[in-house]
C-alpha cells in the first residue's frame, strides 16, 4: 500500500504494510508508475507505516535509486522502524541513499 504527494520535482511516497518478496512486485510496479512522471527527480520514501522489511525491500529501494540516478535524481528514506533501520544499516546503502532525520512536517 502506498500514498503519495508531489511538490515540484520531489515525490514523497508513504509505504505501509510489510515489504517482503511477496509484496515487493506490487510496490515496485506502483512506484514505477509514479516515477513515470518526468517531472519527478527526487524520491523520498516515508517508511513510518512499514514495521517490517527484508532484503527484498532493499532490492526494491536500490532499483528505484538506479532509475532515478539515470535522470540525475536521488532517493532518500525517512522514519524507519527499528527493524527496518537494522537491516538498512547492515546493507550499507545509506552511503548512497541517505536517511533524512527530520520529521515529516518540517
Amino acid at each position: 500500500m502506498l500514498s503519495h504527494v508531489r511538490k515540484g520535482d520531489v515525490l514523497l511516497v508513504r509505504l505501509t504494510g510489510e515489504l517482503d518478496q511477496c509484496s515487493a512486485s506490487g510496490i515496485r510496479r506502483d512506484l514505477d508508475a509514479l516515477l513515470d512522471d518526468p517531472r519527478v527527480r527526487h524520491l523520498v520514501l516515508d517508511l513510518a507505516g512499514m514495521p517490517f522489511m527484508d532484503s527484498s525491500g532493499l532490492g526494491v529501494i536500490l532499483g528505484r535509486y538506479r532509475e532515478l540516478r539515470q535522470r540525475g535524481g536521488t532517493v532518500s528514506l525517512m522514519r524507519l522502524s527499528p527493524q527496518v533501520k537494522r537491516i538498512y544499516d547492515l546493507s550499507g546503502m545509506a552511503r548512497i541513499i541517505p536517511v533524512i532525520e527530520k520529521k515529516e512536517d518540517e
Partner: protein
Amino acid sequence: MMKIVNHMRLAFDALPENESFARVAVSAFTVPMSPTMDVLSDIRTAVSEAVTNAIVHAYGESGGTILLTAALREDAVLQLEIADQGCGIADVEQAMQPFFTTQPEKERSGMGFAVMQSFMDSVEVSSAPGKGTAVRMEKRIRPMGN
C-alpha cells in the same frame, strides 16, 4: 545435549504469500520464551530471508514444499531449520557472500545470507546441486542465567 522443551514442524507450499505465514508462525512459537521485541524481529527477518531463498532460488517456477522445524531448548535458545528439496546450491561459500546474487536482473539485493548471519547467532547451510538445501540457525532468546 540441551533438553528440547518445545518443538514444531510445518510443511507448506513454496509460495510468496507463505513468507508472512512462516514469520508469524515462528514468532508465535517463540513468544512463550519471552523474547524482547528486537530478538523477535531478528528471528522474523532471518526466517523471511531463508523462506524467500527457498521460494525464489530453490524452487523458482516449479514450486515445491518447504519444511520448517523449530525447537526451543531449555537454555532459552531457538533452533530453526528451513529445508527444501529444490535445485540446491553448487557453491555455498559464494552464495553466502554479501551482494552475491544469481538474479541481478530481478533486483535481488544478494543480502539474504548476510542478514541471516548478522541477525542470528549461528547459520549453517547444507546443500548439494539437485538435492535441496537446509538452513540451520540458532538464536539465544534470553541471556544465560535468566
